[in-house]
């Protein structure tokens, strides 16, 4: 116990909190969240047009023309936020600050398998994740892929006469089918997966708010993103506690940490030692 506390002390001395997301990233998430909510609110009633709740929503928003107007306004905002995202990546490339932390790799598949073994009890150690684990990458790339589909099919539906100048007419109803199918898929993934991952999961309940605060606690980064933690503060991977084996030790170490002010660190810049 003392041994573990001693070892963790060195780490906790570094910082109590780490900056996980920049202001820009937090705003991007907020914007995506608002767009997603409004687009679903104004889109789903069109898909399920017979449902009485759909009729209620449409009438409450002042009729189908208003609903479509709002849908297109927020679709435009979403499109611009997508461009912003790509632009921000481009800028970080130019500045030499870009890193591949979100890039999918073979390791993610291995991690998923290890996690499966851990969950069913075949193994006692969790995979050790970097800045983003395979579940977060899955969500990110899901939004990228889904977002591209929604934007392309949405624009096809918005400007069908332009789309059919080159493409056959059938792409318009196909785009509608795809737009509504992808929307439903996105909604269900968000309400099951994302809500669980960041709010309902016992590991995070009542919620992991780092995407809003931008901060991640010392113990959380060590627990959930150990490889990133090592990259930030240095140290030895083997020294990190394994929660599955010694959950009490981690809890103790977190209480052990001395209060220090939040640092300015990002994943690009290792925190002060």
């Amino acid at each position, binding site marked *: 116990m003392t041994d573990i506390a001693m070892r963790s002390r060195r780490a906790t001395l570094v910082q109590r909190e780490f900056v996980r997301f920049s202001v820009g990233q937090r705003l991007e998430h907020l914007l995506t969240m608002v767009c997603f909510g409004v687009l679903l609110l104004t889109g789903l009633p069109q898909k399920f047009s017979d449902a009485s709740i759909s009729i209620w929503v449409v009438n409450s928003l002042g009729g189908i023309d208003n609903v479509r107007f709002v849908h297109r306004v927020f679709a435009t905002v979403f499109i611009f936020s997508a461009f912003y995202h790509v632009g921000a990546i481009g800028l970080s490339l130019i500045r030499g600050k870009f890193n591949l932390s979100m890039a999918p790799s073979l390791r993610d598949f291995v991690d998923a398998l290890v996690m499966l073994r851990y969950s069913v009890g075949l193994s006692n150690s969790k995979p050790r994740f970097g800045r983003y684990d395979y579940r977060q990458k899955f969500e990110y790339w899901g939004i990228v892929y889904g977002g591209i589909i929604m934007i392309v099919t949405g624009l096809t539906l918005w400007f069908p*006469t332009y789309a059919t100048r080159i493409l056959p007419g059938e792409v318009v109803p196909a785009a509608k089918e795809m737009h509504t*199918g992808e929307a439903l898929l996105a909604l269900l993934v968000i309400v099951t997966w994302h809500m669980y991952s960041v709010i309902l999961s016992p590991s995070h309940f009542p919620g992991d708010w780092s995407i809003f605060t931008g901060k991640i606690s010392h113990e959380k980064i060590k627990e959930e993103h150990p490889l990133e933690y090592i990259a930030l503060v240095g140290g030895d991977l083997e020294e990190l506690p394994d929660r*599955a084996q010694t959950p009490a030790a981690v809890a103790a170490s977190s209480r052990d940490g001395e209060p220090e002010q939040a640092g300015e660190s990002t994943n690009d810049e290792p925190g002060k030692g």
Partner: protein
Amino acid sequence: MGGLALAVLSVLARAGFASAGRIPDPPASAQATAGMSDEECLRCHSDPNASLSLPSGETISLYSDPAVFRRSVHGDKLNCADCHVRNQTVPHPSLNVVTARDFHRAEYELCKRCHFENYTRTLDSMHFDVVAAGNAYAPVCTDCHTAHSVMRLAESHVQIAKTCSQCHGAIYDDYVQSVHGSALQSEGNPDVPVCTTCHGVHNIQSATTAAFRLASVDMCAQCHASKGLMDKYGISSNVLKTYLNDFHGKTVGFYQKQSSEVWAETPVCFDCHGVHNITRVDDPNSPVIKENLLPTCRRCHPDATANFPSAWLSHYEPSVNRAPIVFFVREYYRFLIPVMIVGLIMHISLDLWRLARNR
């Protein structure tokens, strides 16, 4: 000319009935009804030359053929005095009318003594709106039903169309050329709509209002979504469903449920298929046959190009043979959504299971 008194008795009576053919007997109560008997009336009104000159210079005939009346729907029920209650004294009370039209519009009020319900319906009709706007020639009961030779119009679709054609001749000409009208004309087909099927009978509404436009979809669907009726002619009864599932139909569907009245810019059935001149969809002149579809689309989508019309699946449900891209996209999501969600829920369950065991 105010207070003009007109003596009705400008003619002499000629005794006896102008009998021709088999004439139904007058109602048994004939002798019991108050006032004048038919014999007394006919003493004057069986003269074919009996007429009345009006201040306008017009002359109206006062002749009534009792045989025609007896063959009418009222023939075995009513006698002259049952309707013409105010003329039971001789000489008849004076009339305060100037034109023949004034006279007819005054006399038709007699109908409401029995047919009050239908009379009040006409007060809600767009014909009455035209009257209210000052047009004396908008139809009243007797214009469609006649005064004395009243028949059951509802029993003859051909007769209904002809009745309306007295005023709406140009529309009638279109209608008899249409798929509906020609079937009525040539074979007396009872399934096809006549004027009143779509426009209503006594409370006929304007067909150019937003409300009529929105309701028209369901009006067409009354027949065209009826499987039994459509199968008889080998026509799809899926047309309403496929319309309502597409962009145009969804819009109209929501407009129908909106509390405020909206003019639907989106097309309803008759915008593409035609109104009174509606043709079979395989007629070379049909606006919706493939060769003619682009100009039809361009009425609303002026920048549409040759590929555009096939964006509309022509009331077909997507299938492997028809609109396969749409079909496979739909099937893809039907497969992907449940698989994905079940997979994610399993992942969540495993996670929870492990966390529970860790405690």
